[in-house]
C-alpha cells in the first residue's frame, strides 16, 4: 500500500485533525463523535444541514462544511456509514430552532443509521428531516434493490440546500429544494483502477491493464460490468448516453455538467473528459450553462471519473450561484 498513513485506524481521525488545523477559524473537529462542524453552528435563524455517508469520498463531505454548504459532516470510517449514535450526537450539536436536514446518500447502511438517528432525535423533540440522494443511473430502481445509489450529484443538493438555508428558508422549503435538485440530477461513473482502503492495504479488486469497471458507485465496489479499456471519446460517450437517456435530458435543456474525478485521475484528464462530454452534449442540443471539473466525491485513490448532469431552472441556477466558503479552494 502506497499511502501517507500512520496506523490505518488513525487514517480518518488524523485526516479530520489536519482539516481542522488548516481551517482554525471556520471548522471544529469533535474527536469523540468523529465529526467536523462549522465553528459558528447552530444559528438561530438557519436550518442546519448535515451529511455523513462514510469517509474516503473527500472532499465530500467533511471538506464541504462551511458557510453556504453543510453545518456538519459525520463521516464514519472509510466506506462505512457512521454509527447511528454519531449521527444522533451530530444532530444534537447542530440542532437549530429552525430544524435540521439530514442528507443521506441512498445506501442500506446510511439509510439505517440516519433513520435511527432521526428517530432518536425526534424522541428528544428535535425537528429533523431526512432526504435521500439517489442520482446514480448505473443502478436500476427495482424491488430487488434498495433503489438507486447516491453519488456525486449530492454536491448539487448540498450546495442548493446550503444556499437556501443561508437565506433563511424554513425546513419545508429547504427540503423541497433538495428533493427538486435530486430529482433533476443524474450521474454515472467508471473506474480505471480499483482503490485501496488504508485498513485493507491492498486494492479492493483486480482489474487487468486493459479493463475498466463501468457503472461504479463511490465505495470502491466493482461496477455493473467489466469492459475493455477504450479511447476517452468512446468511454465518455457511454457515460454521457447513460446519463442523458435516463432522466432524459432533451435538446433545449439547460444543464450543469460536472466531471468528477474519483481520486487518482489528474485534473488534466478530467478537463479532457469535460471537453469530450461538452461536445457530445452540444451535439444533442443540450446547453451547458455551468461547468464543474475536479474532485467532488471520490473513492480514495481510484482512477476514474463520473459525469453528472443537473437540469437547471432559474431557482436552481441562482442557488448554485450563491457564495459558499468551504475548505476546498486554491487561494
Amino acid at each position, binding site marked *: 500500500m502506497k499511502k501517507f498513513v500512520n496506523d490505518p485506524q488513525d487514517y480518518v481521525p488524523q485526516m479530520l485533525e489536519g482539516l481542522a488545523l488548516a481551517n482554525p477559524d471556520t471548522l471544529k473537529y469533535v474527536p469523540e463523535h468523529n465529526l467536523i462542524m462549522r465553528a459558528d453552528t447552530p444559528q438561530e435563524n438557519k436550518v442546519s444541514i448535515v451529511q455523513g455517508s462514510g469517509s474516503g469520498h473527500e472532499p465530500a463531505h467533511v471538506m464541504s462544511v462551511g458557510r453556504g454548504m453543510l453545518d456538519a459532516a459525520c463521516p464514519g470510517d472509510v466506506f462505512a456509514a457512521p*454509527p447511528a449514535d454519531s449521527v444522533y450526537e451530530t444532530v444534537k450539536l447542530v440542532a437549530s430552532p429552525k430544524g435540521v436536514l439530514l442528507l443521506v446518500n441512498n*445506501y442500506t*447502511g446510511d439509510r439505517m443509521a440516519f433513520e435511527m438517528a432521526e428517530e432518536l432525535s425526534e424522541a428528544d423533540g428535535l425537528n429533523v428531516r431526512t432526504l435521500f440522494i439517489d442520482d446514480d443511473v448505473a443502478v436500476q430502481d427495482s424491488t430487488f*434493490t*434498495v433503489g438507486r*445509489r447516491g453519488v456525486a450529484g449530492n454536491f448539487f443538493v448540498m450546495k442548493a440546500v446550503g444556499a437556501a438555508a443561508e437565506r433563511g428558508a424554513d425546513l419545508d422549503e429547504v427540503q423541497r429544494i433538495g428533493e427538486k435538485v435530486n430529482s433533476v440530477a443524474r450521474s454515472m461513473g467508471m473506474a480505471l483502477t480499483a482503490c485501496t*482502503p488504508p485498513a*485493507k492495504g491492498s486494492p479492493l479488486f483486480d482489474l487487468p491493464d486493459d479493463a475498466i469497471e463501468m457503472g461504479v458507485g463511490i465505495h470502491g*465496489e466493482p461496477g455493473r460490468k467489466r469492459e475493455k479499456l477504450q479511447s476517452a471519446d468512446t468511454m465518455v460517450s457511454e457515460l454521457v448516453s447513460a446519463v442523458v437517456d435516463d432522466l432524459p435530458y432533451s435538446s433545449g435543456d439547460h444543464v450543469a455538467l460536472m466531471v468528477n474525478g474519483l481520486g487518482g485521475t489528474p485534473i488534466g484528464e478530467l478537463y479532457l473528459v469535460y471537453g469530450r462530454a461538452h461536445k457530445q452534449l452540444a451535439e444533442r442540443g443540450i446547453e451547458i450553462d455551468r461547468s464543474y471539473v475536479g474532485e467532488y466525491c471520490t473513492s480514495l485513490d481510484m482512477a476514474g471519473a463520473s459525469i453528472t448532469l443537473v437540469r437547471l431552472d432559474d431557482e436552481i441556477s441562482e442557488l448554485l450561484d450563491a457564495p459558499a466558503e468551504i475548505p476546498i479552494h486554491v487561494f
Partner: protein
Amino acid sequence: MTSPSTSTGDLAFVVRTIAQTAVDNERAFGDLDAVAGDGDFGYSLARGFEIVLADWDTLVSDSPAEFLKKVALVVSKRVGGTSGPLWGTALLRASGAVKDRTDLVATDAVAMLRAAAEGIKARGRSDLGDKTLLDALIPMTDALEQRLAEGGPGSGPAELARLAAVTARTAADATTPMQARRGRQSYTGERSIGSPDPGAVAVAVMAERIADEWDAHERREGATP
C-alpha cells in the same frame, strides 16, 4: 448444569467467542466483502467487538438481558456501515427476548436467535433468500428449534452447538449461487453470484468456533454433565 438448560455463563462464553472471532477474522471477513462489496465488513465488526473484549468487565452482568443490551450499545456506538445497525439491533432484540430472566434454558437460545433474525429483517427490510447473514442465521435457528422440539438424544449443549455450526456452514455455502438483493453487493447485479455472502460466512465461522470450544468451555466452567 443439566441439559437442556443453559446459563449466563454459557451466554457470556458465546458472546465472547463471537467477539473474539470478529477480531481474529478482521482481514478474512474484509476480503470476503471485497469480492462484490466494499471490503469494510471485517474492519467494521472488529472495531466494535474489540471494545466488547476490552470493556468486558463493565459489560458482564447477572442479568442476561442487561448484559446483551450493554453489548448492543457498544456495537451500535462504534460499528458503522450496514453492520452497525444490523448487529446492534440483533443484540438488542436478543436482549428483549430474555427480558427479566435470570436463568436461561436451551429454548431461550432459540428465542434470542429468532428475535435477532426478526430484528435484522425489520431493520434491513430483508428476508431469507436476499443473500445476507439471514441466510445463515435463520436456517441455524430453525434447526435448533426443530431438534429441541424433537427432544431426546442430540440435544445436549455441545451437540446443539455442533448442529448450529454445521447448519450455518451449509447455509452460508449455499449463498454462493444466490444473487444479492439487499446491501451494497446488490448493486453489482448478477456479479454477486459466485461468491458467498460475507455476513452469512461470518455467522458460520462464529458458530463453528463456538462448537469447537464448547467442551473446553464446559470443563473450564467445571460444569457437571
